[in-house]
């Protein structure tokens, strides 16, 4: 299976081994912006920001909603330590929509007691969930 065009992607959550396979490319959001990783990447550790995780397998694409964690990128291997990650089929769309509206409401109200950073993360998370479903 392994050839120069692919690398091993492992996604580990505290509860389970979420994904493990040879892939061609993986894309996700980091604190520094979006990143796409191809085989032979320079060693890099990045912090994950809520967003879509896009896996390009030899047989096709896979999408998941990745919310928090960090990733260790090595030339022949990528390990994502995900605190929270979901396949689209595990997402409850109605709940995500509701969460999105709630977060937007909180951001708009700008009341002094609202924790802006928290509301923003909540919004990003909801958006990522909804996008993963599309």
């Amino acid at each position, binding site marked *: 299976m392994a050839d120069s065009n692919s690398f091993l992607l492992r996604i580990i959550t505290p509860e389970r081994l979420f994904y493990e396979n040879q892939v061609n490319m993986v894309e996700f959001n980091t604190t520094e912006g979006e990143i796409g990783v191809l085989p032979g990447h320079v060693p890099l550790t990045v912090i994950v920001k809520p967003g879509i995780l896009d896996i390009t397998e030899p047989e096709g694409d896979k999408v998941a909603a990745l919310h928090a964690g960090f990733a260790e990128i090595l030339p022949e291997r990528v390990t994502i330590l995900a605190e*929270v990650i979901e396949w689209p089929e595990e997402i409850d769309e109605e709940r995500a929509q509701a969460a999105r509206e709630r977060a937007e409401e909180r951001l708009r109200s700008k009341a002094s007691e609202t924790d802006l950073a928290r509301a923003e993360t909540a919004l990003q998370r909801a958006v990522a969930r909804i996008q993963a479903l599309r």
Partner: protein
Amino acid sequence: MASMRDIKRRKNSIQGTQQITKAMKLVSTVKLQRARTNAERSKEYFNCMYDTVNSILKRVGHVEHRYLTPGDSQKKAVIVITGNRGLAGGYNSNVEKLVTRHPEWTREDLVVYTIGSKGRETFLRHGYEVKACNNDIVESPAYTDAMGVSEELLKSYADGEIGEIYLAYTAFKNTVSHVPTLLKLLPVEISGESGEKESGASAIMNFEPEDVEALDMIIPKYVTSLIYGALMEAVASENGARMQAMDNATSNAEEMISDLTLKYNRARQGSITQELTEIIAGAEAIG
């Protein structure tokens, strides 16, 4: 010598107890197996986390960082993970002893965060300052529970309310051996020996964002994963300890029952002999 009826009553009561201990043993055996697989699954996450944090710390060296140097406060926070229920041998008290009998700690310096109601009761009784605790999590710990605990602690740490954070739990070595362990969570201590493995340890790791900023974000996750791992192991240990305790109780009951059966039979024989003697004596007296 006790009468036949007394012996019989006692034997029945012990048999009842034995049935309970036997059932409890079976239940904890099943729970242990589940908790054990969960604990093993979370190990991988934790190991990766540990390696990464270690490699970052090694690169950063001795930098001034709030997570690496002790806070100003004299107060120490200790998370104590115990069970919600007893009948598990020394499981609960062994963890508690780590804290109550610590040679350098005094009651006044400590803030105890208990997880599990047994620990909470003990520390309240001994007059410790017990803070927010959640007893339900030990039943089936989820990662979000660990996140909640670590968030709260890191907040008090950032506010300067506490200077150090410790974690007391029971490490699960195997089914029969559980070791009460005290871990220092914060400030993070850079371990001297290398925890590196074959995998790409020689490659120079880059960080995005820069090292110090990365520490800010990774260390809370590291603390959370430690708490989570400890919870998983503690649950496994609790069930292991209970299984052992109940196994001992069951075999003790077995021993008592066989002893009582012997006594009962002797008493029965004795009473028959006595009756016979009386009848014969009576018959002879008439005849």
